[in-house]
Structure formats: C-alpha cells, structure tokens
C-alpha cells in the first residue's frame, strides 16, 4: 500500500461521519421522536397550561384560552402547520400531566428548574420574570443597586423583592431604606408619585406599570432570574430542536417583544 496513513485517516473520517449521522438520527430526526411523530400525524399540538395565571394564560367565561403563552403556542403551531390544543392543568400537576402523556409540551409560564433536567427537556428561555429595579423616568444617577445608598426603595411587603432589598442592605452593605407596600403595583405607584427613589418588583409588574401609567423606567439588568421555558418529555429531541429554533427565530423577528407589548 502506497499511502497507508492516508487510508487510515480516510477510514477514521468515515467512522466519525457515520457516528455523527447515527447520533443525529437518534437525537433529532422525527422518526425517532414520538412526540413529533404524534404532532405531525394528528396535526394537533397539545399544550398543558395552567389557565389561571394572567397575563400568561387564562380562560374566559366560554372557556376560550388567551394570554401571552396562548399566543406563543398558537404561533409555534402555525409555523409548524398544526393546530394548538390546550389542556388546562393546575400548576402543580403540569409535570405529571406531561409525563403521563396528556400533552406534548408544557407552555405555562414554567420556571426553569435545574433539579428536573433528567425528567424533562427544557427549551431556551422565552421570558425572564425576575426582579427589576425601577426608577423614575427622569432619574439618571441610579444605574444599579450600587447607587441605592441613602435612597428609599419601595418593595412589596413579604415578597421576593423585599428579600432582595434586604439582601443588598444586609449582605451587600448598601445603606438603602426599605419602604414596604401592600403590593407590587403600590410600590411602583409610590415611585411614580415621588414618595421613594426606586422600587424593586418582578418584571411582569414593572412592564405593566411602565406601559399603563408611565413615568417610570427600569434598569435592564435583572436583579434575579426567573426564566420561563417550555418543557417536553425525554426522548423528544427533535421537538426540542424545533422549539429552540423557532424561539430563536421569534426573538430575532421581534415577535416575543410584540407579545410583551400586547400583554404587559
């Protein structure tokens, strides 16, 4: 043999290519993903959702579903040429419903849970419901929590926002003054009215208040993360890939931003 090294190199390449094809087939191709097979055959994408968490999911008197997540599910289904069908499940029963095969995915303001990554497959995040720092529109000196020293910060009493503020006060040693309010909207109203210098609240409340009442803005960097994701059953690699691709496309095309403006 004239070029034994070249032969071995080529043989190695062929082996790697075969392995890559096998892995791709096993993980991504529709033929090996029962979830995608079912969706394609039935023409229906079944979505488990707790329809009691506005503005993400709710039902009207006639039982019709609406909300941020409903629009997102309909958009995904539309792009795949199928129809979305919603299964209303209580929040604590969502995972069991998915694993029992009552639906193809959970799309229900579902927070990412790192302890369940062996039980389900999570999509990339499509919404962050974490805490934001809000200031008045004209405020320019406060650019983050480090500028809160000596400032009055409104939070909802007993909430995660109060814990966050306390954390900066006690662990971060930022001498801020915590002003507690009965709810997040009241905290933002106090900011709007000039009673406090800043407010900490979850992004849903902040977006909603900023749009409805105006006069406030928020620092874009989140103080905490609560990433909402879509979950599918293990073995649904191809479905996961389609979801991940579509979410990336929807983000690029500004669809998620539009949904946010529509619902918050």
């Amino acid at each position, binding site marked *: 043999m004239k070029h034994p090294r070249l032969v071995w190199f080529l043989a190695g390449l062929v082996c790697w290519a075969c392995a890559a094809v096998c892995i791709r087939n096993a993980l991504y191709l529709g033929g090996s993903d029962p979830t995608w097979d079912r969706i394609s055959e039935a023409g229906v994408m079944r979505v488990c959702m707790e329809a*009691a968490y506005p503005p993400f999911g709710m039902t009207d008197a006639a039982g019709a579903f609406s909300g941020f997540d409903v629009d997102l599910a309909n958009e995904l289904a539309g792009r795949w040429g199928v129809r979305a069908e919603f299964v209303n499940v209580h*929040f*604590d029963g969502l995972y069991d419903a998915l694993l029992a095969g009552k639906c193809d995915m959970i799309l229900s303001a579902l927070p990412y849970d790192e302890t369940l990554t062996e039980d389900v497959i999570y999509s990339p995040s499509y919404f962050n419901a974490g805490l934001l720092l809000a200031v008045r529109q004209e405020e320019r000196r406060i650019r983050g929590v480090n500028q809160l020293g000596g400032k009055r910060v409104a939070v*909802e009493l007993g909430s995660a926002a*109060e*814990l966050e503020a306390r954390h900066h006060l006690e662990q971060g040693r930022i001498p801020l003054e915590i002003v*507690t309010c*009965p*709810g997040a909207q009241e905290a933002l109203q106090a900011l709007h009215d000039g009673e406090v210098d800043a407010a900490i609240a979850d992004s849903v409340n902040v977006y909603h208040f900023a749009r409805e009442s105006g006069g406030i803005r928020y620092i874009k960097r989140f103080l905490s993360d609560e990433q909402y994701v879509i979950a599918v059953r293990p073995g649904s690699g191809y479905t996961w890939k389609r979801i991940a691709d579509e979410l990336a496309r929807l983000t690029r095309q500004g669809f998620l931003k539009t949904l946010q403006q529509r619902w918050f």
Partner: protein
Amino acid sequence: MESAPSGKSVLSELCGLLSQGLNHALRSPLLPRLMLILPLIGLTARVPGPVVHIGEPRTVVTTNPKMGVHTRLTDEVEEWKIKRTLEMVREMGASWIVEYFPWGYYEPEKGRFDWSHPDLVVDHALAQGLQVVARIDFVPDWARPPDTTYRYLPEESYDDYADFVYTFVEHFRERVHYVVIWNEPNLAFEWGYRLPDPAAYTRLLQAAYRRAKDADPNVTVLAAGLAPTLAPPGSEWGMDDLLFLQQMYDAGARGFFDGLAIHAYGWTLSPDAEASETTLGFSRASLLHEVLVRNGDGDLPCYITEAGWNDNRRWANAVRPALRIDYTVRAYEKVLEEWSWCRMVAMWVFRYPRPARTYQDDFTFVTPGFVSRPIYDAVQAYARGELP
C-alpha cells in the same frame, strides 16, 4: 577459662547495640517519610468529638406563650441544621413545636427500635426551651399487607401501633408530654385509600390511649387533627371533619383523648371571618370545639397543630404576602386573647430541609438555607411586642 561477663560490660554492649541501631535508623531514607506519615496516622486514629453540642438550656422570650410552629425535621439529616432550625424557632418567639415521628422509621422490624434521630430532635428542642407535640403515624412494611401505602393500618395491627406508642411515650417520658394519634383519618389518602371510618379510627384511638397511659399516666393524648373538608356524604376522598368528630363520639371516643388536635388552615379568609359549617377557614376550629362542648367535653383543651396561610403567586388558595403576615399575626393574637379553650397554635410549616418546588414552599417562615422570610421577622416583632 573465660570469666563470666560482668553486669557493666553487658550494659555497655547493649548501649553500643542501641546506638548502632539508632545511627542506622537515622541514616535510613525511610525516616523522613515515617515522620511525615506518623501525624496522619495519629489524626486518623483519633476519635473525633461531637461537632454540634446541645448547649445550655435556653428559654423562649415571648408575649404569646401559645405560639407554635410545625417543624419538618424528620428528614433533616445534619445535626447542626436541626439545632439551627430550633434556635430560630426560639428566636422567633414560639414556645411549641409540632413534629412528625414516623413509626416506620423508628421500628423498622417488630421490636427493634432506633431512637437516634428522634432523640436529637427532642433533645435540641428541649434545650431551646420548646414544648414538643409528637404526631405518630406511618405504618412500617411489616405491619401492613403488601401493595398498600404507608398510611394503611389494618385492624389486626392496631395493637402493634399501640405498642409503638407505648414504647415512644416510655422512651420520651419527661421529655415529650403530648402525642397525637394518627393524622387526618377523615381523608381517604391518610387512611390508606380506604373510605374514612370514624368507628375504626376510634378503636385505634382507644387502643393507643390505653397503652400510652400504661407508659406514662401524665402524657397528654390528642385525637388526630382532622383535615378541614366539605366533602359531601359518601365521597370517596374524605369525610366532613365536623361530622367525623361527631361520629367518633358516637363510636365511643369520649374518655379516650385528653385533648383534640385541630387543623385550621386559613386559605384566603381572615382569621376573623365568621365560622360556618359550609366554609373552610381558620375560624372553623371553633366549630370543632363546639362539637366537644355538645358531647360534654367542653373542658377538653384543643391544640391547633396545623394552620397558616400561603403566599404563593400561583396557588388559588394563597393570599398576597402582606396579607399572609397580617392574618398570621392576627391568628396568634386571636388564640391568645379570645380562644381560652385553645392551648396552642402551630403554623405550618417553619422550614423544609430542601425546597419542595411547589406551592408548599410558600407556607414556610425560613428558607432551607436559613434565610428568614419577612413573615418570620413580622412574627418575631409581634412576639417581642414591637409591632405597632
């Protein structure tokens, strides 16, 4: 002829040999290695002392001696966490804890007992000045048929359960003064997925009561806290708690309990909401007390062993965190000032060893990492008389 060696020459010979050996050892390349290893051997051979100490007895400083919490230390492995949990209970101003003692954990085989973990919990609680109320259930495998749940206690095993109660009371004599016989027997789930049966539960209560008193006549035996439920008659899931208690009396429960444990969750109602047979809420506890009164047991004290509000954002039965704080403090206050028949109220639940990752996490006062939630601070301020 050689003369016998004198004692002096033998000694000098021995010294010579010793110095030769020492010289040899000192020159050996093994010596520095041995010198390095020896301390390690010493360290491993040393038996470590206890890392966590029970400590000096402490007392609870509070303006409300009826305040309690339900702890969940059953699954807490590390002793320092048990101690820290109970310290925080004391620092909050609660004098009582209710704790779950699963029979199946402590008697894995008939007659073989392991008290190491419950001893830890009880001894630390006592050191913090806390009164312990022990709820006893959880059927071990050997006391129930195969393919049944750990809540399934067949009638032929009632005596086994009663024997365990006897051993428990005897073991914790002078340390645990209150035992609760079973949990929510008016729910099918808690009754091993059988239809709730007040008469059968009464027979269990009678058997356990007799054995508990055999072990310690001064122990206070509490009838189980019933699940607050409006289940319609014949429901496969549960039986109305008021009805269940009355049927216990009809089956002869009178005289077989020294007090009644009550579960009084508030859901979305204020603790001051009017009590009604058709609604669930904290005030429903007073209706259970009325059942005692109607059956001539009005003097029997009640102990609210589970109560509380939840501030989960997504649970339909939850309230906002601020309201939860108001209601909780008010409930403690109400029991102290208005419910003389109630000796104690324990809120569910002080802390979980790890996050449940459900709405249950939002019943807690302290996170698994011992960060106090704002409700903890509010209750502490109330117990110190610092609330406006």
